[in-house]
């Protein structure tokens, strides 16, 4: 059997019995390619903070998908199923560290204190959006929390994380950058370049791959013939760690060790979080055309929200009643924010020409005048039904 066939067989086996496959790799599902340092552990209180942040994203995503189906927003990509890998990883960072996300990690901003109203306003692309309605939903960016927006070209944000981390190192700051990608991004040239540059420069960057098994319709075994994503790290000269991405404690332990290593000057680490995209790729996708529902149902049994909730109840950090209350509180907070955001007008049309350059050059000044004249001549309606 070739390597590739083995990988496929293994992937199939994992699909059939995810729980069993995880167990084989250790009681917590971790499969370290390189042994991590002493495990960082979470107190019940910390796990509860993580759970709250995870649940907040889940509730928000559910509301947003509903709004999308109602035609109130144009597009959405959920984090559903990947909340532990998103939140427990970034929980290991300091506020001064940078987050360079992929499609599904924008919600980490919320845990860092980015307000809900501008976050949701980005989805609506209206005047409450700090990015002035210039990008599709799920491209939030917040300078106040050191988080950038992702690059839809896939993987293109990764070299920026290397540059941010390298700049911090050159500036003698102990800042760390955490960069996210899906399994599909590991096929991109920017992934290769970033891993290579980061290792050569010993840049304090932690690469977190959310291996959610699907890149739109392409399963991971069609992205790579490697036995794992984590093992790719070895060729670049950095540690690679594979963890159960649906277990916040495992994700946190691996990421905290990687962050600590980066901060100490030990260079980059690749952390592979094995998780699952429980929903569609985005609101424009229909996974029933390429994905077996039985597979989805099997992974639902490993839903990180349910698992964390069960763990917290067992540890007496949460009760059924307090969980119900928490969900209700999150939903009412989100509904209030949606109500506030939806009332906001579009960004003023004058913003169309802003921020292309620091100052408006002559050709954009002329085009802006042309635009304003056209708008006036058309009685304020240049088409498109606005």
């Amino acid at each position: 059997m070739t390597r590739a066939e083995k990988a496929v067989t293994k992937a199939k086996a994992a699909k059939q019995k995810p729980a069993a496959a995880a167990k084989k790799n250790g009681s917590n599902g971790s499969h370290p390619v390189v042994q991590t340092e002493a495990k960082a552990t979470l107190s019940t209180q910390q796990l509860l903070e993580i759970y709250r942040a995870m649940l907040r994203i889940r509730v928000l995503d559910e509301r947003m998908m509903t709004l999308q189906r109602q035609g109130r927003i144009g597009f959405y990509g959920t984090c559903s199923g990947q909340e532990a890998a998103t939140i427990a990883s970034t929980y290991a960072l300091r506020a001064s560290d940078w987050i360079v996300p992929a499609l599904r990690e924008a919600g980490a901003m919320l845990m860092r204190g980015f307000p809900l109203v501008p976050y949701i306003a980005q989805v609506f692309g209206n005047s409450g959006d700090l990015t002035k309605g210039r990008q599709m939903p799920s491209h939030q960016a917040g300078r106040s929390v050191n988080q950038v927006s992702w690059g839809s070209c896939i993987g293109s944000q990764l070299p920026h994380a290397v540059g941010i981390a390298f700049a911090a190192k050159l500036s003698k700051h102990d800042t760390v950058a955490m960069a996210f990608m899906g399994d599909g991004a590991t096929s991109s040239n920017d992934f290769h370049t970033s891993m290579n540059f980061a290792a050569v420069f010993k840049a304090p960057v932690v690469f977190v791959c959310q291996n959610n098994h699907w890149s739109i319709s392409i399963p991971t075994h069609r992205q790579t013939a490697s036995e794992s994503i984590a093992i790719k790290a070895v060729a670049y000269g950095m540690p690679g760690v594979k963890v159960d991405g649906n277990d916040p404690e495992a994700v946190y332990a691996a990421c905290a060790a990687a962050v600590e290593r980066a901060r100490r000057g030990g260079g980059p680490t690749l952390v592979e979080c094995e998780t699952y995209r429980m929903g569609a790729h985005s609101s424009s996708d229909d996974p029933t055309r390429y994905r077996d529902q039985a597979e989805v149902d099997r992974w639902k049994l490993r839903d990180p929200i349910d698992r964390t909730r069960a763990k917290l109840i067992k540890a007496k950090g949460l009760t059924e009643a307090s969980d119900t209350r928490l969900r209700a509180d999150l939903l009412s907070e989100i509904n209030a924010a949606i109500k506030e955001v939806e009332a906001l007008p579009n960004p003023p049309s004058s913003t169309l020409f802003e921020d292309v350059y620091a100052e408006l050059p002559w050709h954009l000044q002329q085009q802006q005048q042309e635009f304003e004249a056209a708008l006036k001549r058309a009685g304020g309606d240049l088409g498109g039904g606005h």
Partner: protein
Amino acid sequence: MPTLNLLQAVNDALRVEMRRDPRTIVLGEDVGKFGGVFRATAGLYEEFGPDRVIDTPLAEGGIIGTAIGMAMYGLKPVPEIQFSDFIFPGFDQIVSELCKLRYRSGGQYTAPVVIRTPFGGGIRGGHYHSQSPEALFIHQAGLKVVAPSNPYDAKGLLLAAMRQPDPIIFFEPKRVYRASKGEVPEGDYEVPLGVAKVLREGTAMTVIAWGAMVHEALIAVEKAAEAGIDCELIDLRTLWPLDIDCLVASVEKTGRAVIVHEAPRTCGLGGEISSLIQERCFVHLQAPVKRVTGWDTPFPYTLENEYLPLAPRILQGIEDTAKFIV
């Protein structure tokens, strides 16, 4: 005042700025100990050390992408792309990331990266070492594009470029890296971006060129003057946003225009300049705007002088434009 060639002037600008601003970082392939394949960064590694003059692995997308991150963090990276023909592996980083960052983040993040890269033919380099891709970058909203033709402008424009807030592609005309010599002030001075330079005043027509072709155009306009055609020659210097007032004032005076560039004709900057002129100077024009350019072929190795718009072809363009009667 010392006499420097264009390469030494670039080197001097980098040294002046690196001494002035400790955030300025040079990175690229072979830029460190070796001082660059053309020697543009010679001596910088020795003076500023490996943390500010950084040899990178061989990947242009990585060089530019890393520079974007560095700039977001607050450094002032000046990456070198060894030949502008090699910039395409980093094209996505420039087009999708670098020049859109300010806009797509609502002004929250910026990346004032100055990418230096030698461009143009005339060094027997074939298509991998000779092209002039400036129009591809001018077409990207958010980029500024600069191309000096001589040492004085090269130093002054590069210093100005490194101190302004937008991303810039800084094209250096490698054909005249050593051949173009001139007096260059020591220390600090700037040549403002967005301002063209009238190299020769004339009344018969306006000749517009940049980079190495300025030198060919100069030969052509001098020959034309001997034949009684009094041309005005404009060195564009900043290709985008270009000095529209200078172009319009000149063409309103002369009524005729010839645009010279090495890049292929179709969708080249010459086409855009031609449109700008006809939109603004229509009633002043006495002849069609002429483009003397590289052909719409890949850049050839052996026949490069047949490809390039050198002085004889520029002179023919001038003669044809001069004798055109409406």
